[in-house]
């Protein structure tokens, strides 16, 4: 199993550009999450999904969108990138209630 795979690993965007961060998992996990990690701030939840076709907002959803058309994939869309979205983004998944979360290696995004 590859686990949770994120692409790209690094990206530089100009202000106002859009992009999609890809996340796929091959563990048949129902629950998937997107977090952002800023220096000294811990991980903040952006969006999450408890199954295909179901998504909901986390703590910091503004400026982002998600979709969950399959169990495996959970892409994160940034529309009109802003410098405040410069961060490291992590995708995570877990099988079911009470189990541990598995994280991808992260996408480091810089908006200039």
């Amino acid at each position, binding site marked *: 199993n590859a686990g*949770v795979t994120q692409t790209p690993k690094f990206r530089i965007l100009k202000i106002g550009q859009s992009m999609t961060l890809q996340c796929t998992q091959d563990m048949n996990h129902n*629950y998937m*999450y997107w*977090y952002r990690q800023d220096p*000294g*701030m*811990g*991980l*903040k*939840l952006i969006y*999450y999904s*408890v199954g295909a076709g179901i998504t*909901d907002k*986390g703590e910091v959803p503004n400026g982002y969108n998600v979709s969950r058309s399959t169990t495996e994939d959970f892409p994160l869309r940034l529309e009109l990138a802003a410098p405040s979205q410069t961060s490291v983004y*992590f995708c*995570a998944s*877990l099988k*079911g*209630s*009470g189990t*541990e*979360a*598995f*994280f*991808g*290696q*992260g996408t480091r995004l810089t908006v200039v």
Partner: protein
Amino acid sequence: EDQVTQSPEALRLQEGESSSLNCSYTVSGLRGLFWYRQDPGKGPEFLFTLYSAGEEKEKERLKATLTKKESFLHITAPKPEDSATYLCAVRPVPYNTDKLIFGTGTRLQVFP
């Protein structure tokens, strides 16, 4: 409001010098406390899950304990390869979303 606080923010230890990291939490109900290790440029890696006060888990030089208000990660005779950021996260009730609330982490450096 659900909250997780970790201390200290940073810790420097000599190889072999044992110490403890603290994670205090305020949640309406706890459905699990998780410890993760994060190396620079990598995603968090799962270490332990604790579910009830009095529970303990061990792995090599690490031992995690849980009370009703806090958790400790004890590091016995650390080695330089234990250097990393250690993250604590809680899963509060209700459990249907399985959201994790993270602390800001403790950055551990172990010197030979």
